[in-house]
């Protein structure tokens, strides 16, 4: 039932040996991979071009206490989802943009900046999205310590 998933994991660990033991087939059509920050762009680029995960479905950002965690949900045409996980510390929440690989990722990455306070290197500084223009600096609604009353209605 999960032959295709297993062969994808095999290909991925053959190319990136350090991913050995970090790839889990969570169920049919779902693969979860913990990717180190240093090689992240290489891995996502390889997944997109060589493993044919042509589509970036979404990027989930999570507040994980000391760290911020990002999950890049990739999909191929066979319906398999590859969930690439990237963890960075809150003290230095910098990640690289994946827009060179997935051109349509701009909205997803701007959302990470606005709502979680990630710093996405390589993403052009534009207006706020999805928060309004007059949103105060340093308020990140999806952080766990943020409460809605932190921003006063004027």
């Amino acid at each position, binding site marked *: 039932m999960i032959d295709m998933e297993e062969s994808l994991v095999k290909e991925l660990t053959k190319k990136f040996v350090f991913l050995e033991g970090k790839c889990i087939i969570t169920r049919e059509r*779902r693969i979860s991979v913990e990717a180190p920050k240093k090689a992240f762009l290489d891995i996502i680029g390889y997944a997109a071009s060589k493993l044919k995960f042509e589509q970036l479905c*979404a990027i989930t*950002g999570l507040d994980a206490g000391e760290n911020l965690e990002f999950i890049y*949900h990739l999909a191929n045409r066979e*319906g398999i989802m590859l969930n690439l996980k990237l963890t960075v510390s809150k003290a230095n929440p910098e990640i690289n943009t994946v827009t060179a690989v997935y051109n*349509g990722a*701009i*909205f997803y990455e701007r959302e990470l900046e606005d709502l979680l306070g990630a710093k996405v290197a390589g993403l052009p500084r534009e207006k706020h999205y*999805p928060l309004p223009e007059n949103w105060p600096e340093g308020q990140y609604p999806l952080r766990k310590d943020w409460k809605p009353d932190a921003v006063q209605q004027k």
Partner: protein
Amino acid sequence: MGKILIPIGPQHPALKEPESFNILLEGERVAAANVTIGYNHRGIEKACESRTYIQDMYLIERICGICSHSHSTCFIQTVEEIAGLSIPKRASFIRTLIGELERVHSHLLWLGVAGHEIGFDTLFMYSWRDREFVMDILAMLTGNRVNYSVNTIGGVRRDISADQIQEVLKAVDILENRTEYYIQVAYEETTLISRLAGVGRLPEDVVMRLGATGPVARAAGVKKDVRRDDPYAAYADMEFNVITDDHADVLGRTIVRVKELMESYKIIRQLLNSIPDGPLIVKAPRKIPAGEAVTRYEAPRGEDVHYVKSNGTDMPERVKVRAPTLANLAAISYMLEGGYLADVPIVIAAIDPCFSCTDRMIKVSNMNSGEESILDWNGLRDYSIKWYREQGIELNNIKTFRGEVR
């Protein structure tokens, strides 16, 4: 030639919901288009973290008026996956049935909007009248025209009776007959074809590059449909075709949507003819064990993605929603650039961004006396018939496709 910047939105008569487009014009041509969204961001993901799964279910259902069942199903199947629940077969059939009826009403609604945007208001009135058949069916099955509240964690809340099955089948026959006519319109009506062909082009390679989804992708020949690729609910047991087209423009998107209606009728018939007996629900725990899952759902507008992380309590740790319109908005600038200003409304409408149509009751306040009364659906209908009669128009004399006047 000088360039002119035209701001369209966030409040604009041509837009059905708040979004803002900055259109740079060179003569009549769009040289560049910039989109700004976020005006409707309501913080639902954050709100979900401080509510129980049951409360979230109702909140998530209200993300969208048109695709309410899509979001609710996508969220619930994610929670069920974490909790390890497998729902009864009858429940998954009912979920799928409501999902397909929702697609039918959404596509017919879109067809009307598209007709309206290109000045073909007859098509708008035809398709919205026909849409009432499926709205009535949804109201009969669930009690509501939108926000059906059929789902619950572990199954569904409402059964379908043998009589109701017959009613649905009858309505599907009528709708199928009408849809055949719309397919004919999309393939043969010269004014429609010359108005839509070549407008808002988005070829296959750009679809893949920008991650567009749903009918927008399928109209460019990308055979992508979650119901087939990553089946959920009862779709693995259903036989249907994934409709694609190679026009890669607004005409293609029209053809894909009307032909998808036929596939929906096919699925609805299969569901109703083979719906198994059995329970509607399995008992779900109040507290969901720690874990995470991500599921996808083919909403009328394209792929809907929900991610849920649980922490062992009765409230989720994180809920993430990626609605299909967000995926398609990345491609809107490409579709607009190089086209005419006059095409902007239909190109935007052709990705089918969603708006709510929940009104079915009117509260009438007498401004002088302050008295209030409620007009229900039938009251409203009677009022409109009476109003037209006073203008000298007798609606009963107008031949209808419905065959009956209620």
